[in-house]
């Protein structure tokens, strides 16, 4: 029993507890959510947008937007899922802008002279794939990132983005074909 009490004292507050505290006026509690979620979807945003800088802007905007709209978070315990949708919308809006693909940063070039030839080839293949991803539609790119970068199942992706598994698979399979074409063109 004593052990459980100690656990309760040291346990981090749940998302729902923090959301309710912020809504009741304790604005500083929002920093807990910022710490908790600032990095969780950073990789997703980076791969979808093609740049760490763009991802950082998107995560920052999404966190601010989530605060402004916190009263609309109907399931405070599911803040993570709700925040992901806000970030997702922000990433899609970014991709719809007239943004030159050439300007987008991709995987950085290795600089160290001791990097092996095998590693160089791996990096070059990753760069080529990242460039090819940017030629997919935002929806195709997202499903590829969620499945193969975030390593989610189709069922998990469906729950996260609210699209059925058959539609996601169709998107994905078109993405595979398009990527195959694009990667062959770059050889």
């Amino acid at each position, binding site marked *: 029993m004593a052990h459980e009490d100690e656990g309760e004292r040291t346990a981090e507050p749940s998302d729902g507890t923090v959301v309710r505290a912020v809504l009741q006026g304790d604005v*500083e509690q929002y920093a807990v959510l910022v710490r908790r979620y600032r*990095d969780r979807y*950073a990789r997703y945003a980076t791969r979808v947008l093609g740049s*760490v800088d763009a*991802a950082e802007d998107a995560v920052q905007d999404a966190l601010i937007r989530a605060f402004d709209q916190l*009263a609309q978070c109907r399931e405070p315990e599911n803040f993570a899922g709700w925040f992901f949708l806000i970030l997702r919308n922000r990433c899609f809006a970014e991709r719809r802008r007239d943004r030159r693909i050439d300007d987008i940063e991709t995987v950085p070039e290795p600089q160290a002279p001791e990097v092996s030839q095998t590693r160089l080839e791996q990096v070059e293949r990753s760069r080529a794939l990242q460039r090819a991803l940017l030629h997919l539609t935002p929806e195709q790119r997202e499903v590829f990132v969620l499945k193969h970068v975030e390593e989610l199942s189709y069922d998990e992706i469906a729950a996260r983005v609210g699209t059925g598994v058959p539609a996601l698979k169709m998107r994905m399979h078109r993405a595979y074909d398009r990527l195959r*074409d694009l990667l062959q063109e770059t050889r």
Partner: protein
Amino acid sequence: MNETFDPQVKQVLDGERASSELPPSLRAEGEAARRLLAAVDRSEVALSPHLDTRVMAVVRRHAASPRYRAWRWLTAPSVPPWVVGALAAAAIALVLIRSVPDGAPVVAVPAPAAPESVYVKFVLFAADARRVALAGTFNRWDPATTPLTRAGAPGVWTVTVALPVGQHQYAFVVDGQQWIPDPAAPSIDDGFGRKNSVVSVSAGQGRIL
């Protein structure tokens, strides 16, 4: 030129079939699929350590703004829902009055669509628009899902949607490019320097809007 992966190879890419199960005729294609997945970069991404500070600075500024305080007051549990509903209804009714030319009929909307949702009619006067759509929290801000149609009077665009009880933010999208808030509804900052309109739908409010 457009080469496509065989469906069996796509199953390998999806992780639903082992590459060793591919027939010999598809081995080369299977190898191409393996190379594709081997190129996926799953390295972690580190954002700036100053991001937290920047976010909280904006959050504190927003929290101190009179608009946010007013919004919090309106959405606080101690404020009866009908206050918010009445304000939003008055605002949208004002749009109808402002937008519809003299003598044009204002059509009453039928009763609630479902126990937890209410039909809401959105109206915009946009004389020069070629198309108008509605985007909001209720359709994931996707303008493609909710287009407005021309009403009887020139320049008047309308759409009626069933909204769940609760508060919703929205904006009109004119000609696919211009996002504008409802001129007569309450609005809040969307965090990107633009305004979103706000509508509050309460149970039993099935007549207007």
